[in-house]
């Protein structure tokens, strides 16, 4: 079989994918109760977005 799966994601899609997958894993590993897990996943996802966008803006002056 020589077929190969190719995936192309934009920066934003890759960023969202990464944040979502890691947040879900952290939520399940870090909390036991379903309600706590959902809260943790949403909070973690939000922080990934805020910190990621924050770092991107902080690096902007040095990007050229």
């Amino acid at each position, binding site marked *: 079989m*020589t077929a*190969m*799966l*190719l*995936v*192309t*994601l934009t*920066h934003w899609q*890759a960023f969202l*994918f*990464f944040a979502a*997958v*890691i947040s*879900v*894993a952290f939520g*399940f*590993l870090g909390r*036991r109760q379903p309600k706590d897990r959902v809260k943790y996943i949403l909070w973690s996802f939000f922080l990934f977005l805020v910190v990621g966008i924050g770092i991107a803006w902080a690096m902007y002056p040095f990007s050229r």
Partner: protein
Amino acid sequence: MNQHNDETPLLELPVVIDGAPPQGVRQAEPSEAKAWSVAIAGWLVPGLGHAMQRMWGRALVVFFTVGLLVVVGASMRGNLFTSNGSDAFDTLGYVADLGVGSFYFLARAVERTGADVSHAGGDYGTRFLATAGVLNLLAALHAYEAARGRKA
């Protein structure tokens, strides 16, 4: 004749507080060997360490998140490091990639034409693969700690 004193109970029942075993009943000690076998199984097959302890939700999530990161990372033509790296960063990347256990070979199977980090996609793929490895090592450590009874 035996006369019963009202202050002494007729039958002494064990008192159970907060799920603790009754006095005099020994709880099974978590085995160190079992904890290590859980950790190694969790490293080899993502989620297996948790599955061995009947933590089904965590087992499934670890299996699918690590697997998804590996498949997407390799499909984006991320760099899957090998043992013959040229510098310390390559070696570090190899250690991180080995963290996915048997999924390392899955990534090799998906990434047939080799890495392409000349585009941002390939670079993101490299990060996804490394993250999958570190995440799986974290999950294996969590399973190990749970097997030792430290946390769950």
